[in-house]
């Protein structure tokens, strides 16, 4: 009798150990997130965080990566380079963190890139890269958003289609805006458009650009320009449009991809009617082509986002989704041997990953991921984003 009981006991133990989740549960893969949760971009980064949290939950429900759950650690850098650097250091000294999802804003990019390069940890930055940081040829930094080159190329296509012969560019005083303006000029003049870059600039936190517009008005009238390119991101975009219309300037306005947010229309009001810009695909995901693989992903993500948070997904949540998607894909390809170096290798070899924003392809020479095909043309009509197609430029 005792022997049977002890045999049963041992068998039960073996069975429990074999079937228990405690055996299956492996150490989580930790990703650090260093975003501006306070400061001028607080509302915006909240959506990114929500997108990321939703995706991580979905992945973990499906069992994680070979049983390893994915875990993200959020830290706020308050739009301050010092704190961004401190957070980077905090993450790199924690041995369990494999990669850091970096700042949302351009100013902080250089700081975190330098630290990532020094500490040899992959840094995935949400904002686009610019020539200054690309010139540094850093191995450990990757950008997720559409780069300034493809945005400018798309915009040049738009200007050609609309037959704008002369365009005046009013850009912001930070590297991304400046490089957008410069690329637009380079590419535009290759294709025969005359581009005038104004001497006046503005700062990202300006809320009134009337003085600069007043100074630009004589140039606009004298040169008889066909369009006005508001080469900026964030709140200055709609403010410029509003100031232009207040001054009675009625020429068409071109925008950057940063115009693709709901708050832009809310801020600008009537002045935003007719503004055209190249947008990221999540902005108008329900108006994409039927055969576009990205459309299905966006619709599914939007539904899940709406179920969870009650509001629809947009470009920002798409960035969150894509970041986690890239991490998930790279971790899967690491095949069990997950270290910071192997993660970076795997990420750099990402090919053809379909995500909300488009199809990501990284390579040792290209750390930007997206291409011109991942953007669409959008016009603001009736307070909503309406996609329109230019057949020869799709």
């Amino acid at each position, binding site marked *: 009798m005792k022997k049977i009981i002890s045999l049963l006991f041992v068998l039960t133990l073996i069975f429990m150990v074999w079937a228990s989740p405690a055996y299956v549960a492996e150490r989580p893969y930790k990703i650090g997130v260093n975003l501006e949760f*306070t400061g*001028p971009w607080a509302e*915006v980064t909240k959506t990114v965080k929500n997108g990321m949290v939703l995706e991580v939950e979905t992945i973990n429900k499906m069992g994680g990566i070979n049983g390893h759950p994915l875990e993200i650690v959020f830290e706020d850098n308050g739009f301050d380079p010092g704190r961004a650097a401190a957070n980077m250091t905090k993450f790199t000294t924690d041995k369990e963190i494999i990669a850091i999802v970096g700042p949302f804003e351009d100013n902080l990019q250089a700081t975190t890139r330098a630290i990532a390069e020094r500490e040899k940890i992959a840094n995935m930055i949400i904002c686009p890269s610019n020539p200054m940081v690309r010139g540094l040829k850093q191995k450990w930094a990757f950008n997720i958003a559409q780069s300034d080159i493809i945005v400018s190329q798309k915009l040049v296509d738009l200007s050609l289609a609309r037959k704008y012969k002369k365009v005046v560019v009013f850009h912001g005083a930070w590297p991304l805006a400046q490089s957008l303006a410069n690329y637009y000029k380079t590419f535009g003049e290759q294709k025969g458009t005359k581009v005038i870059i104004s001497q006046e600039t503005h700062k990202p936190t300006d*809320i009134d650009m009337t*003085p600069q517009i007043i*100074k630009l008005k*004589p140039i606009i009238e004298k040169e008889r320009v066909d369009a006005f390119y508001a080469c900026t991101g964030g*709140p200055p975009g709609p*403010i410029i449009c509003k100031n232009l219309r207040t001054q*009675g300037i009625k020429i068409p306005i071109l925008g950057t991809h940063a115009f693709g947010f709901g708050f832009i229309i809310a801020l600008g009001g009537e002045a935003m009617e007719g503004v055209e810009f190249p947008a990221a695909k999540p902005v108008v995901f329900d108006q994409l082509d039927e055969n576009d693989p990205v459309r299905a992903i966006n619709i599914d993500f939007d539904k899940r986002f709406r179920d969870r948070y009650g509001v629809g997904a947009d470009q920002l949540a798409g960035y969150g989704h894509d970041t986690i998607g890239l991490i998930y894909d790279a971790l899967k390809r690491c095949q069990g041997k997950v270290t910071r170096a192997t993660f970076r290798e795997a990420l750099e070899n990402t090919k053809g990953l379909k995500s909300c924003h488009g199809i990501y392809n990284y390579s040792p020479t290209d750390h930007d991921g997206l291409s011109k095909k991942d953007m669409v043309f959008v016009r603001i009509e009736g307070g909503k984003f309406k996609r329109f197609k230019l057949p020869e430029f799709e």
Partner: protein
Amino acid sequence: MDFWAYIPQLLSSGITMGAIYALVALGFVTISRASQIINFAQGEFVMLGGVVTFFLLNGVRLPYPLAALIAVTIVVLIGFAMYLSVLYPLRKASILILIMATLGISIFLSSTSGLIFGTLPKALPPFTDEQPLTFWGISVLPQSVWVLVSTLVLLIFLYLLSHRTLLGKAMEASSTDPLGADLLGISRSLMVFLAFGVSAGVGAFAGILITPIFFTSYNSGTLLGLKGFIAAVLGGWGKNTGAILGGFVLGIVESLSLAFIPSGYKDAVAFVILLLILYLRPKGILGSPFIDSRRW
């Protein structure tokens, strides 16, 4: 010299900004006449006026005039709360502590507003339609006309308040001669309390006027408050008329200077004017009963 072409346009936008600076300066002077405190959180009242109205209009979906009225009331209540909780306990403290306390309140109000209402700039619909009126080559928004008219109405209202009502006269008395007012039985702390309410209300009113033209965001209050203070010093510290005059002069000079210097230096102009005034004529344009020039 084609920058002479800008001048009329800049003048009109300068007068609009000048009206706002005048209202903020009035708020400063009201409090400091009653209590010798300089309220660095004055600009935050302006910001709150605009932001709370936006919230009531879009979040709670009240009609525009009602939202504006309730917003002004809320900001007045915040002004009262501020006085009771922070400045009344510190009424005997040194200047430095008072400055730091009001700066602390300013940080609190701006960061809490960013927390509750969001950090993006907010716009309100203008009172009448948005199409600019063009005459003599300059385009003027109808809203600017509303700003000037409303400022005038408010000033008349405040004048009537302080010279025709008993409460207003008591406040005037308390500011002009504290000891005499005390002897008459006018409670000084009550007068200061009311002064906070009045200046908060004036600030909120200015905020509602200005938000349709210039957006307000959670951090636009700080700079506005500083410029309002500069306007008050410019016009003659301690006098209502001085504050108003200083506001308009500052707005116009700041705007006109843009014709000659790159637009990024706009904020520095106000501070350069401040330093010049403090060195050359600290009494201000109209002279001030509080500052004795001989000591400088």
